[in-house]
Structures are given as structure tokens and as C-alpha cells.
């Protein structure tokens, strides 16, 4: 029994050591493991003009304009995180989920004019899932405007049954 105990304690000790080592490493790399930078990060310290990076945030409501330049679709929109804004220009096909109020992650470089020249735009959807009629009911009742931001608290709609006369 003592040998089993010893093995158990040894295992727990190793686990403690490894666990805290990993925690320390992850804390140290916390800032380097970002997949994208927010507009506030970019405002605080702008990466150099030749430096490609990812910019992420919400597409500001009413900021999207689409045009065609030399036969290529060109989209201009503003990415915001509430505190700061960065204008973005992207020549190419936008993903299906792209819309105003949606989260996006764009890859590109910040131009000298302050416009982010994106070479790739990815849509980032949130963690809410609801049937179309529930979303319509929320929009109709004025509880939610998808172009203005995230859905209302889930507890207010996740049992809503608009099509069946329920509450």
C-alpha cells in the first residue's frame, strides 16, 4: 500500500509541477497568442505600414459601401470595437455571413492614409443559435437589431415559440 501511495503522491507532484509550468508559460504568452488585434490595440500602437496583421471587430452599422473598381468588387466598411474604429477596404468576394453588425477578422496592412487594406475577410459569428422565426419575432418586437450588435440575453428568447402561439 505504501508503494501505491508513493506513486500516487509522485504523480500528483508531477501534475502540480507540470500544471503550474504550463500555466506560467501560457500567462507569459498571453499577449502573443492573439489571433487578431482590435481597433483599440491598433490605435494604441499601430504596426508598421509593411507589417501584415489581422484586424478584428464588428462591422459598424451603416458603414458598408460596395462598388466595382476595374471589374473587381470593392467593399469599404468600418471595423469597430466600441472604443475605436478603423476603416477597411477589401477587393474581393465577402463571405456569406458578412453583414453590418457581424464580427469579422481581416488580414492586411494599414496604409499611410489610415485605411486598412485587407487581402482576406473572414466572418466571425457569435455563439447564439436560433430559428429564423424567433429572430424575426425579436426584430419585430424591437428587442434586437442584428446590425447594431449581439442578440439580447439568451434567457429572454431561448424558449420563445413565436410560430405556435406560446410565450
Amino acid at each position, binding site marked *: *500500500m505504501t508503494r*501505491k*501511495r508513493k*506513486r*500516487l503522491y509522485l*504523480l500528483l507532484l*508531477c*501534475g502540480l509541477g*507540470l*500544471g503550474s509550468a*504550463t500555466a506560467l508559460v*501560457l500567462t507569459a504568452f*498571453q499577449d502573443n*497568442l*492573439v*489571433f*487578431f488585434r*482590435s481597433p483599440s490595440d491598433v490605435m494604441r500602437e499601430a504596426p508598421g505600414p509593411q507589417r501584415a496583421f489581422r484586424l*478584428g471587430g464588428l462591422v459598424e452599422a451603416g458603414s458598408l459601401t460596395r462598388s466595382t473598381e476595374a471589374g473587381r468588387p470593392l467593399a469599404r466598411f468600418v471595423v469597430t470595437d466600441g472604443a475605436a474604429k478603423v476603416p477597411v477596404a477589401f477587393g474581393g468576394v*465577402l*463571405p*456569406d*455571413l458578412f453583414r453590418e453588425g457581424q464580427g469579422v*477578422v481581416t488580414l492586411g496592412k494599414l496604409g499611410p492614409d489610415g485605411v486598412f487594406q485587407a487581402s*482576406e*475577410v*473572414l*466572418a*466571425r*459569428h*457569435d*455563439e*447564439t*443559435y*436560433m*430559428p*429564423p*422565426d*424567433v*429572430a*424575426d419575432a425579436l426584430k419585430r418586437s424591437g428587442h434586437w437589431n*442584428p446590425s447594431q450588435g449581439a*442578440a439580447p*440575453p*439568451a*434567457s429572454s*428568447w*431561448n*424558449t*420563445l415559440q413565436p410560430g405556435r402561439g406560446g410565450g
Partner: protein
Amino acid sequence: MSNAPSLAARPAASLHRFANPGRFLRLSGRLLPWLAASAGLVLAVGLPWALWFSPPDWQQGETVRIMYLHVPMAWLAMGGYAGLAVASAMALVWRHPLADLAARELSPVGAAVTALCLATGSLWGKPMWGTWWVWDARLTSVLVLFFLWLGHAALVRAFDDPERGARMGAILALVGALNLPVVKFSVEWWNTLHQPASLTRVNAPALHVDILYPLLTCAVGFTLAFAAVVLLRVRAAVMERRIRALQMAAARRAETDG
């Protein structure tokens, strides 16, 4: 201090009751048909419900149905790995022979569900996000989980002495368990393309019940199926080991007789 041995003795004694391979074969033989039948039954309800009768998502449309496969596979990949870590700890501390076998038979199934999770996630990412793959913290940590499963499956089979392979595999499995909280919390600790958790939130789940219930049904069904497959593999491994022992004994007898 005086009651310490009895505390240690109790779990060990109850574990050793199940360490008896004969008892394990008897019990699991009785359990397996029920497990397989209930998996089939739950999936027979859950899959049509999820794939045909549940509503589409308001913004993702019909593509959201990939979730009913992707999310259960992701849960099984992580839950299965937690099981692997528990079996490995039991094998290392209590030298439980069935724990070694369970870990050995668990890892190929775990690798398969993790591969399915990655593949369905990729198929879902292309139409929704606009990319098959990105190196964000969630996707990368799940890829690491996949390599841990594969590495464990390969390592335990890489030694001539199976006991040595099992011990190496158990150490790898326990070190790799550090990746589990990273997978789970990657979407909260770092900004990622992958969205945060929908179900395990501080307040209500962010899934409408018409989507949540078929998802949970599918998750229960796939978990039962996973358990049935693993149990079947462990039974086969126990029987294989028995047959090998009998053949060895027969060969030894033939040698001494001749």
C-alpha cells in the same frame, strides 16, 4: 494517520473487484447489447430530428446542421481524453491491468472522433467563416489533441514489452491532459475566430430549445455509441490476451512433453 491505510485500501479493493478479467468479460458482455441498442435507439431519434425536423439557424441556414455532428464529436474528443487520463492515472498508481488495456483501446477511437470533429469543423468553416482552417488558439489546440490521441495510439504499440509501452503511453496521456483546459478555455483566454461556448455559459444556453434538444439527443446517442465501441474493443483485447496466454501455455506444454 491511523485511518489512512483503510482509506487507501477501500478504493483499491473495489477497483480490484473489476480488475478481474473474467468478471469484466461477464459484466461487459451483459452490458454491451443494452449499450449498443440504446445508442442505436437514441441516434435513430436524434439524427432525423437534428437533420430534418429541427429548424435552420436564422443566419447560418441549413449549414448549422453540421453542428449536430461536430459538437458531439468535439465533446467526445475531450471527454474521451479525460477518460484516457483517468485510466492512465489508475494504471500508473494502482497497476490496474484493465486500465492499461482500456487506454490502449480507447486511443484509436478517440483519434477517430477528433478527426471527425476537425473535418466537420473545416467543412463548416468554409461556408460560414470563409476559410477551411486558421491557426487560432481553439483550432490549433484541437489539432494538438488529435496528435496526442495518435501519438498515444502509436506509442503504446511501439514497444516489444506491452507493459513498457502502456507505461510510456500513460505518461504521455497524463502530460497531454494539460491540453484539455487549453482547448476548453482557448476561446475565452485569447481572441479566436471560433466563437465562445454556447452551452456552458454563466447564464442560459445561447441555443434555442428547438436546436438545443436535438443537439443534446445526438450527443447522448454518440456518447453511448462511443462507449459501446470502446467496450467492444476492450473485450476483444481481453479475449485476445487470454488466447495468447492459452497458446503460450499449450506451446510450453508441448515443449516439455516432447
